[in-house]
């Protein structure tokens, strides 16, 4: 039997700041359509045009996917989607509103810090 060694991928292959590809852009747009089917209070209110990097894309994708599954789970208590863990998406619906200067991600980050 042949045993093949599979080398470890170098750590510098990781780049969450890589600009998102068209594929990820489309995935985000498609997920937004799915998100819009959720009740308003379950939506992320994240402004997807502000998502520029893979890390930001991953965070949006995670939030929406968790919310879709949470909303669909039959007979289970609705789990509150996890808070933003790693990447703060640059803009949210709150930052789209005219005259508002305080962005939602910023306030979320503060809340998270307090909880710790």
């Amino acid at each position: 039997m042949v045993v093949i060694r599979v080398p470890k991928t170098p750590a510098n292959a990781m780049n969450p700041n890589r600009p998102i590809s068209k594929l990820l852009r489309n995935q985000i747009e498609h997920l937004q359509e799915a998100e819009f089917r959720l009740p308003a209070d379950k939506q992320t209110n994240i402004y997807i045009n502000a998502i520029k990097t893979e890390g930001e894309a991953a965070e949006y994708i995670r939030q929406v996917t968790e919310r879709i599954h949470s909303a669909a789970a039959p007979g289970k208590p609705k789990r509150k989607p996890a808070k933003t863990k790693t990447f703060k998406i640059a803009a949210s619906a709150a930052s789209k509103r005219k005259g508002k200067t305080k962005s939602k991600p910023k306030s979320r980050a503060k809340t998270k810090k307090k909880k710790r």
Partner: protein
Amino acid sequence: MALSPGLQNLKHIVVLMMENRSFDHMLGALKATDPLIDGLTGNESNPDLNGAEVKVKPEALFQSQLDPDPDHHFPGVDLQIFGGDTSDTRTANMQGFVKSYFQQRRDAKHAAKIMYYFTPDKLPVLTTLAQEFAVFNGWFSSIPGPTICNRAFAHYGTSFGKVGMDLFYVKEPFQSIYDRLVTATPKRTSKLYYFDQASSTMEIVNLLQHQSELFGTYDQFIADCNSGNLPQYSFVEPNYNDHDGDAGAIIASDQHPDHHVQEGERFIASVYNAIRDNPDLWKSTALLVVYDEHGGIYDHVPPPKCMPDGFVASPNDTGTGKEFRFDRLGVRVPAILISLWVLNGTVVKGAGEAGGRIFEHASIPATVTDFFLGDYDQRSPREKAADTFLDLLTLPTMRDDAPEFQLD
């Protein structure tokens, strides 16, 4: 006719679909060791904008080479396949890859990299599997276009008239392969396993309809393999983006440029190992590793014509000024069928070869439906015409020489 021992034992079909690499780019170099593999001689070329010959080179790198992401949308692929000929009498010649890539950066030296291919030592997993099991010389993407419409063929046997990345909606009477299985009597089992919540799925249409019912994560796939609870049909998606997880950095494993190809190798190996590590599962599973489309990267085999699927994409949708009747396949991609019942070193002949067979992504629902459901009429014309691949499980007795992958 009696089923072969391989088919008598078969209980599970698993499909792992990777991203955006052509056959020649990944496996073309294997022709040097096995002339039956329809790969590269080293003399294949494309003209640059001045007509100078740009040859294939064994200089593909894992990362940072194909940036920007090579064009693989419908008009770009049309140029790659037909070399810029837009006449009604044109024939596919695979002479427009360098021209197409040049358009993105206007850099002749960089455009030549679209002709680069990997040497087998760089891809120990994929090339070992290709040589140890069955490699397809003639597996083509379903559409000369991008990811979403091509993946649709793997799920539905049609893209419902789409040739791009638009979100589409299922049109009666064509159901996804998952719907067919879970609504059958008796009910069959099926799941799409995506990597994790931060990567999610490209099959949003099913996510919109079924959410949790049909979906699992890669951790669950591993657990289901270990516990012997793998569904009859599983579709596995790699990780589509770099992100942080509970255990630290998680590198994208889909091999989509500019993601690191080596991480995709590790992912393929881990799917294989998960099945292999459960002896009962291993002897009763067929694993297909296939790529959704070529990602704009050179391949030398012209895509053949095929059965139209009944839809028509408008000139506006194709972006070429011409309608598309889904009567021609996309560029060739790597595809490998892995099973203990497949003869070591099988090369399935392809386009232009005597006795050659043509496969495409509609072959996936066609095969799964035939095997688990038998007669089933509500399929697209394309799927009905698609070749199936389980006849490759030919061995009278199970092999005991399957390779093992040890992940560093």
